[in-house]
C-alpha cells in the first residue's frame, strides 16, 4: 500500500489533481519544476536543515504527559512538541522550505492565507528573515478571534488584509489569495499553508512536514521502546496530521487517527468535519472531500478553532480515509475545550485550540486502549493566540 501511487500526476487514488484556471497553470507548474530541482539539489536540503535546526529549533521535543494520561484510560501519552518551534506551531517547517523556493524562483513577493494566524505568522516571519514582501489574507471573523496573531504579523512587517467575502473565514481567505496570485504570478509566490490546493502543493507540503513524524518515530522508539498504538493529530486542511502520519504509513500496527472539528456536533450541521460528513468534490484546486450541498455549492463550516474551520481537507487524507489506513473522528468544540483546560491544568502546557482536538481524541483512544496503550499526539501549536477565545468560552460555559 502506498499513498504515492501516482504522485507525479498529483493524484492520491481518486483524489488530488490540478483544477485551476489556465492563468495559474504556468505558475503552478513553475513551483512543481522548482521543487523538483530543489529536491535533487543537496544544497537545498542543507540550507533547509540549517534553518530548521538553528532558526526554528528542531528537533522538537517529545514530552510524556502522565498526569494528563490518567484521564486517558491510563495509557501512556507522548506529545510531539511542535508548539515549541519558533513561531509556535508546525507551520514554520513548510514556510521556511517554501521561502527558500521563493528565493530560488527569484520572486520578491509572497502571499499567504491564514485561519488561526499560525501560518500567517510563520510566513510573515520567513519573509522578514528572507527580505521578501509579504501579504497575508485572513477572514475578517478570524482577524477578530485571533487578534494577537494579526498584531504579530504586522509587527513582522506583513500586510494583513481582512477578507469580507463569504463566511469570512479560512475558505474565503484562500479564495482571495488565489485572486491575488492570478493577477501577480510574475512577482509573487503563494506559500500555501496546508496539504490541499492543486498539485504539487499537497505532496510538496507533505514532504516539508514529514519531519514531524520522522523525528517522533525515532524519539518514541528511544523513549518507549516501541512504536505507538496510535498516532493522533487534528485535521483541518491536514498538514500537521499528514506530517505526523507519513513516516508511520508502512507501520500497519500504528493506527493513524485524525480528529476533525465537529463544532456543535456533526448532527447539528454546524461543524467542519469534512470526512465525517462531506462528499467528494472540488475546492481550491483539487478533488477531495468537501462540505457541500447537493448542487455543489460549498457550505459554511463551523468550529471554535479558526485553523480547523475549513470545508475541505487535503486529498491524501481523503485517500487514507477511503482505503481505511486513516481513521477520522469528529471532536466537538466542547470536547476540545475540556481537553484544552485539562492539559493546561495537569501538565502546564497550553495547547492551541486546534491541537486540543487531537488531545480530546487521545483521551477517547486511551480509554479504548486501556493501560497498555501507547499514544503519540501531535501538539501542533501553542495556545497563546487562543486565550481570548478560551476565556470567553469558559465564561459562557461556567458551571
Amino acid at each position: 500500500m502506498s499513498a504515492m501511487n501516482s504522485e507525479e500526476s498529483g493524484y492520491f487514488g481518486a483524489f488530488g489533481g490540478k483544477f485551476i484556471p489556465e492563468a495559474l497553470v504556468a505558475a503552478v507548474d513553475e513551483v512543481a519544476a522548482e521543487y523538483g530541482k530543489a529536491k535533487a539539489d543537496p544544497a537545498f536540503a542543507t540550507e533547509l536543515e540549517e534553518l530548521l535546526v538553528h532558526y526554528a529549533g528542531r528537533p522538537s521535543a517529545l514530552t510524556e504527559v502522565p498526569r494528563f494520561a490518567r484521564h486517558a484510560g491510563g495509557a501512556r501519552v507522548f506529545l510531539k512538541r511542535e508548539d515549541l518551534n519558533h513561531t509556535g506551531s508546525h507551520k514554520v517547517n513548510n514556510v521556511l522550505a517554501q521561502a527558500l523556493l521563493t528565493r530560488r524562483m527569484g520572486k520578491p513577493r509572497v502571499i499567504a492565507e491564514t485561519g488561526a494566524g499560525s501560518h500567517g505568522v510563520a510566513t510573515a516571519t520567513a519573509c522578514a528573515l528572507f527580505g521578501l514582501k509579504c501579504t497575508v489574507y485572513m477572514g475578517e471573523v478570524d482577524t477578530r478571534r485571533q487578534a494577537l496573531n494579526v498584531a504579530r504579523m504586522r509587527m513582522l512587517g506583513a500586510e494583513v488584509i481582512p477578507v469580507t467575502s463569504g463566511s469570512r473565514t479560512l475558505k474565503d481567505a484562500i479564495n482571495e489569495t488565489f485572486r491575488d496570485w492570478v493577477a501577480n504570478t510574475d512577482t509573487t509566490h503563494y506559500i500555501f499553508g496546508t496539504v490541499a490546493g492543486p498539485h504539487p502543493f499537497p505532496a510538496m507540503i507533505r514532504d516539508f512536514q514529514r519531519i514531524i513524524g520522522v523525528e517522533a518515530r525515532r524519539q518514541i522508539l528511544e523513549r518507549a521502546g516501541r512504536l505507538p498504538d496510535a498516532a493522533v493529530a487534528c485535521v483541518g486542511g491536514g498538514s500537521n496530521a499528514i506530517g505526523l502520519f507519513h513516516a508511520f504509513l508502512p507501520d500497519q500496527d500504528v493506527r493513524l487517527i485524525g480528529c476533525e472539528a465537529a463544532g456543535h456536533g456533526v448532527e447539528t450541521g454546524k461543524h467542519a468535519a469534512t470526512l465525517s460528513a462531506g462528499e467528494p468534490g472540488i475546492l481550491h484546486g483539487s478533488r477531495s472531500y468537501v462540505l457541500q450541498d447537493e448542487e455543489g455549492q460549498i457550505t459554511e463550516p463551523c468550529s471554535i478553532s479558526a485553523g480547523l474551520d475549513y470545508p475541505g481537507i487535503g486529498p491524501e487524507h481523503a485517500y487514507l480515509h477511503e482505503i481505511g489506513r486513516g481513521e477520522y473522528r469528529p471532536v466537538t468544540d466542547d470536547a476540545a475545550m475540556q481537553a484544552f483546560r485539562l492539559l493546561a491544568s495537569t501538565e502546564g502546557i497550553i495547547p492551541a485550540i486546534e491541537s486540543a482536538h487531537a488531545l480530546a481524541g487521545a483521551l477517547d483512544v486511551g480509554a479504548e486502549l486501556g493501560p497498555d496503550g501507547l499514544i503519540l499526539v501531535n501538539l501542533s501549536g501553542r495556545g497563546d493566540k487562543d486565550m481570548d477565545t478560551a476565556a470567553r468560552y469558559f465564561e459562557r460555559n461556567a458551571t
Partner: protein
Amino acid sequence: MSGNIRLLADTLARAGKENRAALIAYLPAGFPTVDGGIAAIQAALYGGADVFEVGLPHSDPVLDGPVIQTADDIALRGGVRIGDVIRTVREAYRATGKPVLVMSYWNPISRYGIERFARELAEAGGAGCILPDLPVQESAAWRDRATKLGLATVFVAAPSSTGPRLREITAAGSGFVYASSLMGVTGARAADGEAAPTLVRRLREVTDLPVCVGTGISNAAQAARVARYADGVIVGTALVKAVLDAPDEAAALTAVKTLTAELAEAVRRT
C-alpha cells in the same frame, strides 16, 4: 434533441462576414432574481449581443472580481438552483434564437452529474459550456458527452499559457477559444496592453477556432480596439455593474439594453 454548437459556429462566422467581431455578453442566472435575470439576458440579446454566456452562480467564485462575486451572492441568497440556470438558457434561446452557453465552475456540474447536466442543457437549446477551472487533462468525460449532445466546450487561454498548452487547449476545445486579455480575475480595468493581441496572434498560429477576447473589457472604446483583431468581444462585469447600479428592475433592463447597443456598435470594424 441536440445542442446548438452549429448555431454558435454560424453566428461567429456570420459576424466575421459582416466585418465585425461578435459581441458575447455575460450575466449570472438568478441575478437579481431568476425572472429578472431572464429579462436582463433577453434585453442584452435584443440590444445587440450575438451570443450569451449564462453564469452558474457559485459559492466560491475564485476567478471573479468583487462585482460578479456580489451578483453570485445575490443569486444564491435568492435560492437559485441549477434547474433555474437551465430554464434561463431555455427562455433566452427560445425568445431570441441566439446561441446561449453556460459558464460554470466545475464542482457544481461535477456534483449535479455530467450526463444529467449535459442532457438538460442540450434539451434547453444550449450551445455549450465555458469551464474555466476544468483543465483539459480532466475534461475527457465531459467532452465526450458534450460532443455527442452537440454542445461546445470552450477552454480559456491566458497570456501565461505556453505554446504546448495553447495547442492542447485548442485541440480539445470547440465553439471558440476564450482568450483572457490579462492576468487577473474578472472586472473592469483600465489596462488594455499588448497581452491580448499577442495572445490572439499566438492562438491563430495553432488553431482555426474563432478567438474571442474577454476579461476586463468594460466600455465601447475598449471593445472597438479588441474587435480589430478578435473574432468576438466578451463583456461581463460591466453588464453586471449596470444591473447593480440601477435603482429598479425597469432601469436595469434599460441600462443593459443601452450598454449592449453601444458595445454592438463598437464591435463593427468599419
